[in-house]
């Protein structure tokens, strides 16, 4: 994606070594059991692979955002979409919030052990009747003086069955008045139930979560009360950007597999790669993939430069890579023929795991809605976006 410096290359090589040793030999077994390899959080935490770009003061490694990009790219390329999703939902959903707006006490109690992999975290937003429509959230926190009384239900919460704590988006008033509450999974009144039989992400943990008169001390309010919606919207740009990286490198994996297959597979007296229809298919896939990489790189550079204000470019990158990666992987199955339809070759797994990217972290339809607001309604951040887009063209 770019010319990495020495540290970034070392990180990438270390991750590849880690994946080859700890993940690749076991993926099929975990897939078959539909089991999240929880122990990997501890192993990755010990290596410093969680929160690589968090400040050293809170337990991170102090690298820049590219470190997160490298980690997500390498995990995605390892074709273990489920665990990659669990790692992502832990490292890039609740933890950046704790880093940005958590108190020192909250960071010591929750963030530091989460970066070590000793605790697993979730971000609980989606509800049975509110997904993309965050303003429709009903889980309610009633202010009781020194605590909030929490009631409601969440669904599709990654890591909540195996996790230790979650950041719960809670309605504490009308409209956008929402509060982020740090809730421990073992507290009285908190219960979870696994969501099984998913299309993909078989090695991730997904839960329904129920809150029944849970007393959340005011010390566990993350940031300022009633401002949760805005904290979320700020954080979601990083989340979407990294999902764009996941989509791109899942497609890269499938493309590389397809390329190797057409070079080796014999048919009609030669290799598949000698047939024009296949050659053009590969050429088209390569072009789509290069477009994904270019779009993601541009969004990353813009995010590094101006942060969450790079909203439109990040949104474009998220929707583009989510949709295009699915097409690339679909074609990778096609060139594999029957072998693409069975588990042995790995492409089937990549296909079903990638399907989530146009749904999770905001559906493609929501992404297009956001982009249309920038393009047609000329909403705020326009100036920053235009500047960032110009910058990228120049670069």
């Amino acid at each position: 994606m770019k010319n990495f410096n020495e540290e970034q290359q070392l990180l990438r090589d270390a991750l590849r070594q880690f994946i080859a040793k700890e993940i690749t030999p076991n993926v099929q077994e975990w897939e078959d059991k539909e089991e999240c390899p929880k122990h990997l959080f501890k192993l990755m935490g010990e290596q410093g692979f969680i929160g690589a770009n968090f400040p050293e003061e809170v337990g991170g490694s102090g690298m820049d955002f590219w470190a997160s990009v490298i980690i997500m790219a390498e995990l995605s390329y390892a074709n273990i979409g489920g665990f990659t999703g669990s790692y992502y939902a832990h490292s890039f959903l609740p933890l950046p919030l704790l880093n940005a707006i958590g108190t020192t006490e909250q960071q010591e109690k929750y963030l530091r052990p989460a970066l070590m992999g000793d605790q697993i975290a979730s971000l609980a937003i989606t509800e049975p009747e509110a997904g993309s429509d965050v303003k429709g959230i009903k889980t309610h926190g009633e202010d009781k003086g020194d605590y909030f009384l929490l009631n409601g239900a969440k669904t599709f919460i990654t890591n909540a069955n195996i996790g230790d704590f979650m950041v719960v988006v809670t309605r504490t008033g009308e409209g956008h008045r929402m509060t982020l509450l740090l809730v421990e999974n073992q507290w009285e009144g908190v219960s979870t139930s696994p969501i099984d039989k998913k299309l993909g992400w078989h090695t991730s943990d997904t839960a329904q979560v129920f809150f029944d008169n849970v007393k959340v001390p005011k010390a566990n309010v993350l940031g300022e009360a009633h401002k949760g919606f805005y904290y979320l919207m700020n954080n979601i740009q990083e989340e979407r950007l990294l999902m764009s990286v996941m989509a791109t490198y899942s497609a890269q994996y499938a493309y590389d597999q397809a390329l190797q297959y057409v070079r080796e597979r014999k048919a009609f007296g030669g290799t598949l790669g000698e047939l024009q229809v296949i050659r053009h298919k590969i050429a088209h896939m390569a072009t789509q993939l290069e477009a994904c990489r270019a779009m993601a790189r541009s969004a990353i550079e813009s995010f590094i430069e101006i942060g969450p204000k790079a909203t439109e470019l990040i949104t474009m990158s998220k929707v583009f890579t989510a949709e295009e990666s699915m097409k690339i992987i679909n074609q990778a199955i096609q060139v594999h023929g029957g072998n693409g339809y069975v588990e042995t070759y790995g492409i089937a797994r990549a296909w079903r795991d990638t399907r989530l990217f146009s749904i999770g972290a905001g559906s493609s339809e929501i992404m297009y809605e956001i982009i249309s607001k920038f393009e047609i309604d000329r909403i705020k951040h326009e100036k920053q976006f235009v500047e960032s887009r110009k910058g990228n063209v120049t670069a």
Partner: protein
Amino acid sequence: MKILVCITHVPDTTSKIAFTDNNTKFDSSGVQYIIGPYDDYALARAVELKEAHGGSVTVLNVGTAESEPTIRKALAIGADEAIRVNAEPTDSFFVASQIAEVAKEGYDLILMGRESIDFNSGVVHALVGEMLGIVSVSPVMRLEVEGNTATMDREIEGGKQTIQIDLPFVAGCQEPIAEWKIPNMRGIMTARTKPLNVVEPVGGEKQVKLVDYELPAAKGAVKIVAQEEVNELVKMLQNEAKVL
């Protein structure tokens, strides 16, 4: 305890091997380089010994500036400092001469892989021992150090031999002496700050002249012979493979 670990900068084991210039040069385009796998075992054990007994680990590489990313990885794994002898590692005698020159400074242990995985001569540890006038042992599968004495298991034909030697000595290492270490973030972030000293080579004439390279013959198609057709198999081994 001062430990010197000699590492090679070699093509990844999955590299596609090709040659250029009328088969007289290795084609390094697109090749990923790594620490020699046997050297990596030696380095991992050296770091473990340092953590257990204190002291320092110095990595030594005879190579050009292209080796430096590999040397930095060794520093990220846990070595304290590095020395690069600025020369092409042309042959075993030359490389051993450079190592011996550096090792004269005085190290308690001089560890390296039992062989490199490019030229696989497997003689450098013995040459260094001879040049320094100290014992050289290889291939070492286990290494413990207590005070001034080391206990080690050495692989021999059909088994292993346990021996004790006083420090200093040279050891050519192999698995399972230690598990390869994966650099952690702390190591990666500190690798850049650790000293990497470049020194010029001394003497050590080339003993080998490289004529050309040749790839092994391509593997033929696999023929499967049914269990009950042993006579047919024997005929094939005699007449086609000509190995009987």
